[in-house]
C-alpha cells in the first residue's frame, strides 16, 4: 500500500479517536436531557434555578437547587485553596530545587495520593479528620464542608503538582541559565521565568483540578452530610450536587418518578456549569500562552 494511502487511513483513525470525545459528550447530553426535559415539564425552570429549598425526598417537595450548588462551590473552594498553592509549591520544589534522587522517590509517592480510592478518603475525612478538627473547633459538626474540602484538596494535590512539574521540567534549561547568568536567585527564576513559561501546562493542571473537585462524588457523599442548605459556613452539614445524585441513584427511589428525575436535572446543571467554567479557562489560556521553538 502506498505511503500516501496509509497516511490517509492513519489520519482518519486518529480523527475517530478524537471525535470519540464528542460522541461521549453527545451521549451524556442525550442521557441527561431526556429526563431533564421530563423533569422541567413538572417543575418550572425558574423555580429550579432560583429556589432556596431542596426537599424532593420529603413529603413537602421543594425543587430549588441553589442549596446544592452553594454546597458544591463551598467544598470545591476549600479544596482548591489547599490543592492549588500546595500543588504548585510542591511542583516548584521538585522541579527547581530538589536533587534528582529525591524527586525520583517523592514524585511517585505523591502520585499515590491520587490513587487512594475516594471511598477511603471519605471515611478518612469522617472518622479521622473531623474528630481531629473538632478538637480545634469544638463547634464543628460531625458532617461539615471543611473536612471533606481539606481531604479533597489533598487528593487533588498530586494532579496539580505532577502536571505542573512536568510542564516546568519541559521549559528549556537555556532559559533558566540565562536568568541565573543575569544574577537572579532560584526563587526569582522559578517565579518570573519558569512558571510563566510553563503557564499553559500549569493552567491545564489547574483546570483539571477544579473540574475534578466539582465532580467529586464519594468523599462528599460520605463526609459532607445530606442536608441541603444555603450557607457559607463550612462547619455545618451540607449536601453537594454529586452527593445528592449518588444518594438517590443508589437508594430506594423507584425509577421514572419525579424524585428520580431530579438526578438528571442536577446532573445536567453540573455539566453546564463545568462547561461554562472550561469555556472561560480556555479563553484565558489562549490569551496567555507562550511558545518556544
Amino acid at each position, binding site marked *: 500500500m502506498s505511503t500516501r494511502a496509509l497516511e490517509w487511513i492513519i489520519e*482518519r483513525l486518529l480523527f475517530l479517536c478524537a*471525535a470519540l470525545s464528542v460522541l461521549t459528550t453527545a451521549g451524556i447530553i442525550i442521557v441527561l436531557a431526556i429526563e431533564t426535559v421530563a423533569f422541567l415539564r413538572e417543575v418550572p425552570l425558574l423555580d429550579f434555578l432560583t429556589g432556596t429549598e431542596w426537599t424532593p*425526598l420529603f413529603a413537602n417537595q421543594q425543587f430549588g437547587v441553589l442549596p446544592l450548588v452553594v454546597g458544591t462551590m463551598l467544598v470545591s473552594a476549600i479544596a482548591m485553596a489547599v490543592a492549588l498553592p500546595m500543588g504548585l509549591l510542591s511542583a516548584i520544589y521538585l522541579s527547581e530545587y530538589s536533587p534528582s534522587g529525591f524527586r525520583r522517590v517523592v514524585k511517585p509517592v505523591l502520585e499515590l495520593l491520587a490513587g487512594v480510592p475516594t471511598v477511603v478518603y471519605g471515611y478518612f475525612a469522617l472518622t479521622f479528620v473531623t474528630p481531629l478538627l473538632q478538637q480545634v473547633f469544638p463547634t464543628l459538626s460531625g458532617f461539615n464542608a471543611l473536612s471533606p474540602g481539606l481531604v479533597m484538596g489533598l487528593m487533588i494535590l498530586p494532579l496539580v503538582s505532577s502536571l505542573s512539574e512536568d510542564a516546568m521540567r519541559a521549559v528549556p534549561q537555556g532559559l533558566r541559565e540565562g536568568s541565573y547568568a543575569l544574577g537572579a536567585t532560584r526563587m526569582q527564576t522559578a517565579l518570573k521565568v519558569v512558571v510563566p513559561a510553563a503557564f499553559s501546562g500549569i493552567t491545564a493542571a489547574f483546570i483539571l483540578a477544579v473540574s475534578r473537585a466539582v465532580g467529586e462524588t464519594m468523599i462528599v457523599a460520605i463526609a459532607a452530610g445530606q442536608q441541603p442548605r444555603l450557607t457559607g459556613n463550612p462547619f455545618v452539614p451540607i449536601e453537594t450536587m454529586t452527593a445528592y445524585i449518588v444518594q*438517590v*441513584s443508589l437508594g430506594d427511589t*423507584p425509577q421514572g418518578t419525579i424524585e428520580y428525575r431530579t438526578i438528571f436535572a442536577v446532573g445536567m446543571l453540573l455539566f453546564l456549569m463545568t462547561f461554562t467554567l472550561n469555556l472561560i479557562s480556555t479563553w484565558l489560556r489562549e490569551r496567555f500562552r507562550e511558545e518556544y521553538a
Partner: protein
Amino acid sequence: MLLSHLRNISFLAVLSVALTACGPSSQDARTSGSGGGSGAKTLVTLDGSSTVFPISEAVAEEFQKANQGTNVTVGISGTGGGFQKFCRGEIDIADASRPVSASEVAACEKAGIQFIELPIAYDGIAIATNPKNAWADKITVAELKTLWAPDAQGKVKTWNQVRKDWPNREIHLFGAGVDSGTYDYFTEAINGKAKASRGDFTSSEDDNVLVQGISNDELALGFLPFAYFEENAAKLKLVPVDDGKADNGEGAILPSPDTIRTGTYQPLSRPVFIYVSTTAAQRQEVQRFIEFYMKNADALVREVNYVGLGPAAYTMVADRFAKRTTGSVFSGVNTVGVTIDQLLAKEAGK
C-alpha cells in the same frame, strides 16, 4: 474541507454500526462468567436493596455449599435500581426493602414480566440514645410524632418540649438517610405520611455513622435499623416504645426478635421482600434456590441480625411460591401494625 469532514463522519458511522453488532448476546452475558472449571455452572442473579443484601448473601453462601453446580450473585443497586433491572428481565430475583410500587408494577406489566412476591424477614427500627442518657426510659408514639413532625422543624429543640419532666437541654436528632426505606417507613408509622418529617436532623445513608454520632453525643436521640443496634449494643441505649394500644402488648415495649416477630413491638417494624419472576421460576436452579431460602431463612436471618417471620409464615410464603401466586399483596397497602401472618392469611383467603 467539507468533503474531508463528510468522509470522517461516514467512517464513524460505519464503525459505530460494527461496534454495536459485536459483544455477546444478552443470553451469553447472563450465563457466561459463571466461574471456571469444566462444565458451565448455572447462575442465579439477585439485585436490589442493600438492607436485604446481608440476608440474600447468607442464603447464597449456604446454598452454594449445598449445591456446587450453581453460582449465585447479589448486587446492591438499591430497591429502585433492582426493580428496574427486574422489570427488564436482567435479573432473576429483586431484593426489596419496600413493597413494589404502582409504577414498577406497570413497568413489569409492560415488559411482560410477572412476579411472585415473597416476604422474607422483618426489619425493626430501634429508637436509641446515648448510654449516659438517664432520663429517657421510654417514649410514646405521640411523643415521637411531636419530635419528628414536619412542623417541629426549628421549633422543637429541647428535651423538655417533648415531655415536661425531661431536662431543658438541646436534643440532637439522628436518623436514617431520606432516600432509604427505613426513613420512609419510620415517617409513615410515626407521622402518618411517608417522607413527611422535619428536615433539620443529622441523616446518613450509612447507619454506622448514626451509631457513631449517637454514641458520641450525650444529648442524642435517633432511629436506626435494629440490626445496627444489636451489633453496637454496648455503645447505645435502647428506648422502649409505647404505641398506646393495649391489645398488642401493654406499655412500652423494647424491640427484640420476639417482640418484632409477634407484632408486639409496634409500629416500628416492617417486612422486607424478594420478588421472583415467573420466567426465572421455570429454571430448576432458581426453584431450588427459593425452596432453600424458605427452609433456611429463619436461622440465617437471625445470624445477620434480622428477624425471621416464624415457621408458620415461612410455610405460607413457600406455599405462595409453590403455587406461583403472582401479583402483590403489599403494594400500596399500609403495612403499619399488621403482621405478615394476618396479611398472607387474608391473601390466601381472598
